[in-house]
């Protein structure tokens, strides 16, 4: 049985209509792989508390230092690790496309406005300086006026990054691709995107196999329906 609060949340979200479901007419989303199953309805399943989101020092686009915990609490957070030179279509670019889609859906859904944030965290402090990350973020960077905050962070060094990637369980290995002529430094990683609740607990970890705006939005809705 749903609680009254959960019912209210459902009604509010339902009133947002199709905005929760990314529309096929959007050019960006057409490039995303289709979701090959009908996900369970929001609120009909439990997202387990997997682990507390780790904390650490991060740098914003302005080069100022912040505690990451400030951006993993109080709102539902969708956090993904990237490095800006990643070209693996199943890696960072996929996450970016999903985040783009999520941002649009969140903007178009009044019930979610101000309740969800996106966080992109670089795991390549050597190349992803605040300036490089600023260029990468472009127009996506946080705009609180739209009600959807998207934050981009990097770190000062591998030393500051390590406890974060270790804490999230985001495995990263440095490899050198020599196939294209000049050696190219690559960060080998498994794509993971983390859904974090308002209390700072990781509640879902998406891999490229099921990272899709619809599943993420359903999960966000499920979290919002909790007491």
């Amino acid at each position, binding site marked *: 049985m749903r609680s009254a609060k959960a019912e209210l949340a459902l009604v509010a979200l339902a009133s947002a209509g199709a905005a929760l479901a990314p529309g096929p007419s959007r050019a960006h989303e057409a490039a995303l792989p289709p979701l090959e199953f009908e996900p369970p309805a929001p609120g009909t399943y439990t997202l387990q508390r997997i*682990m507390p989101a780790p904390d650490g020092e991060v740098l914003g686009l302005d080069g100022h230092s912040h505690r990451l915990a400030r951006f993993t609490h109080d709102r539902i957070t969708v956090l993904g690790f990237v490095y800006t030179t990643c070209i693996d279509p199943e890696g960072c670019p996929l996450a970016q496309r999903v985040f783009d889609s999520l941002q649009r859906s969140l903007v178009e859904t009044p019930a979610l406005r101000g309740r969800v944030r996106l966080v992109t965290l670089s795991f390549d402090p050597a190349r992803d300086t605040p300036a490089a990350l600023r260029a990468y973020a472009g127009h996506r960077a946080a705009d609180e006026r739209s009600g959807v905050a998207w934050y981009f962070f990097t770190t000062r060094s591998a030393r500051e990054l390590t406890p974060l990637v270790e804490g999230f369980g985001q495995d990263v*290995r440095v490899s050198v691709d020599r196939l294209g002529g000049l050696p190219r430094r690559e960060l080998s990683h498994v794509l993971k995107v983390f859904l974090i609740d308002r209390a700072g607990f990781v509640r879902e970890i998406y891999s490229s196999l099921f990272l899709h705006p619809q*599943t993420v939005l359903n999960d966000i809705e499920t979290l919002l329906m909790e007491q």
Partner: protein
Amino acid sequence: MHRRIVGLVLRAALPAAALVLASMTTAGVAVADETCNSPYIAKLIKGQEDYIYVWALGVEGVGDGSDKLVTIDVNPKSKTYGKVLGSVSVGTRGEAHHMGFTDDRRYIWAGGLAEPNIYVFDIGKDPAKPALVKTIKDMADKSGYLGPHTYYAMPGRMLVQGLSNTKDKSGITGMALYNNKGDFIASYPMPTDNGGDGYGYDLAVNPKRNVLLTSSFTGYNNYMRPLGDLVKDAEAMKKFGNTMVAWDLKAMKPKQVFAVPGAPLEIRWSLKAGDNWAITATALTSKLWLVKESKGEWTAKEVATIGDPAKIPLPVDISIRRDGKGLWVNTFMDGTTRYFDLSNPEAPKQTYEKVTGKQVNMISQSWDGKRVYITSSLLANWDKGGADNEQFLRGFAWDGKELKPTFEVDFTKENLGRAHHMKLGSRSLKSS
């Protein structure tokens, strides 16, 4: 209706099983290899593997008598090819059985069927020298389940299938979910309604379809019992699983229960893009079963016979090719390794067989299918006796026509115990 069918088939199958098994001194069941890993493990070894990790059962009077993780060099270019590089003892003997990689492939989780303990080995720091870094001891307290069997990597966590429970040690069991740090998260009982028998064995997911498949074996009371005694106990022989379950993976809720008589064991999804089917083998009825999606519904059907079911060859492990076109099947009793052409998964055809040991259990293949590895032990109390109790890891080369022996490690001579589950390793997977 559903349950009635299950019961009828089981009753028909078990007397024959009991008869044949009783005529053996000892016998037995088992998951393995590069093509059977969780789809969430991205670091597959697609070239030459360097190591085989064997999870071995301790034997009293052999070495330190404890369960241990044994590392063997399997790279033909190495000076120590086919040799034991080392072993890590866990200091107890708890019916070592299966193991699984975490999604980042930095750790192996392994456990025994006689206890709720789960051992975590670090293979990332030095893949040639695994180190025991943690023992998870709360599975029984937190979930009530006993005999952790399958360790299936999920993103950032591990789903562990139990075989039994601590209350009555029957086959009624469930799955325990841990995060990669080893903290318990949740448990999920195997269904006992809508045709479900509550038993568990293997699990495997198809994330694209949001489906988790589970199979069913038997509980502690049976698998820890000497096989000769067990098969004479008609009531006990009824207590084997006869179902598979399709779960809503996201919701972790059972959706469909299939009648698959005779203890369906290992589950292998076809890895070919676009395929949405899985295959399993039933231990007691010696059949291959296909689970596939049709018009939005999942169905399970018998598609082939393995050997002569009347002789209960006891299929114990299967290994699917990466393209889904072929399947290795090991049958314990007759020590035979069979190859089935799976070009049409609706009608697998056996095209090859070879006796590879007096008793054979797990079978693993390299990603390219050119190398096949076989171990010998099923369960301590089900393995054969006397000269038939060979304990080994054997390597073979497969050219599509013939399995040719390449190396052998005698686990008894090496004081290592009984060789059971295998996982492949590579020095290139060293954590940076």
